[in-house]
């Protein structure tokens, strides 16, 4: 049996870690706790914003760092606002993909040769605090 102190500790831990629902099961008991968004505004506000670097044209993805003289971009790299992240190639013509914000790249980099259309998210960036 969970007492009031146990419940308060669990709720505090949920708020501290941004957990919105929790289920605990024992052999003969089941406890479900939920936090409405209104009860955890601080956690929601603190979550870093994600932004997409979108394609301004259609084309095949070409990473930066080849003949362009720029350093190779790696997974999880920290980037600056307006930093060139890669290209979309139409033949020899290259459209640029730039970071809309300063932050950190999320997920794996696109594969060279992958096709993107206008407006597609090519990179996802977690904005710096």
């Amino acid at each position, binding site marked *: 049996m969970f007492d009031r102190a146990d419940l308060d500790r669990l709720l505090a831990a949920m708020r501290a870690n941004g957990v919105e629902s929790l289920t605990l099961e024992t052999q003969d008991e089941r406890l479900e706790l939920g936090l409405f968004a209104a009860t955890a505004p601080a956690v929601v506000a603190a979550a870093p914003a994600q932004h997409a670097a979108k394609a*301004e044209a259609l084309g095949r993805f070409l990473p930066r760092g080849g*003949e362009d003289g720029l350093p190779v971009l790696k997974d999880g790299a920290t980037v*600056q606002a307006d930093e*060139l992240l890669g290209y979309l190639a139409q033949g*020899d013509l*290259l*459209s*640029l*993909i730039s970071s809309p914000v300063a932050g950190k790249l999320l997920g794996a980099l696109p594969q060279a040769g992958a096709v993107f259309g206008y407006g597609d998210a090519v990179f996802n960036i977690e904005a710096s605090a």
Partner: protein
Amino acid sequence: MIEVLSIPPLASVQDLGRHGQWHQGLGQAGAMDAMAHRLVNLLLGNLAEAATLEIPLTPARLRFPERSAFAIAGAVCGAKLGGRALPRVWAGMAEAGAMLELGPITHGARVYLGLPGGIDVPLVIGSRSTQLREGFGGFEGRVLAAGDVLRACSQSASNLPRSGVSLSLPPLSKGGEILLRALPSSEHDDFSAEAQQAFWSSPYRVTQQSNRQGYRLEGAKLDYTAQGELRSHGIVPGIVQVPGGGQPIIQLADSATMGGYPKIAAVIEADQWRIGQAREGDALRFCRIDLAEAAEAEVQAVTYFDDIARAAHALTAQQKGWE
């Protein structure tokens, strides 16, 4: 408009050269890397003949007093616009007050900078190129210096994407050597068989004695076997002469119009941009071709520029459709 804040010597305004004055002893001048020159103009929607700024030495700092489109191409130099790193080839907009910084050149030898419509300098004897030896043409007939202001021929910005546009360039070298396709020239057969063999099969290094007039090379000695002195003959950019020491010289954009050294080969025009981007110590290798192959190379070069022009127009049309 662009203001030069700092720039090392030898930066000059160039176009595709001053042709048709050979008979008067006036050389061609023009961009050492005509491909990069053409590309910056193409990306800005300029005519190929529009004048650009050729920058052989860095670092340089330039400022845009007002919002303007511009383009750069050629050597890798860690270019930054307002602190933002630019790729080797780029065309886009600079905001008013933005600073363009060109860092150390790490690959290639010359950077070209273009403005909308071309750089506004007077047309002199059919060209806007700086004739450095004679001291006319280009910007007041001289190399640029801090405080100079270059104006664009056109105020209108081309329809460039917000982030700008870049290009994939043909590789400068292959296997660590810059390959130059060349035809045998008039005295080719007067060199010894060993010299001919060495010329077409061994690399030659670019020496420190190299400039817009020509590149002196160092490699296998080339023995000239014919007797007597040659009379001076007309020479053009791309001609490879061999003075008495047996080391070749490639004549380039600012070459003299006449020369008396025996001529072993002529580098085809389609490959002369590679020489313009070669640096001291780079290895050059001459690749013998025939006239038909030279003509085909010219066709391929034209096709390369046409394809890029078509792609640029298609991109502009796409952008308009999406706006």
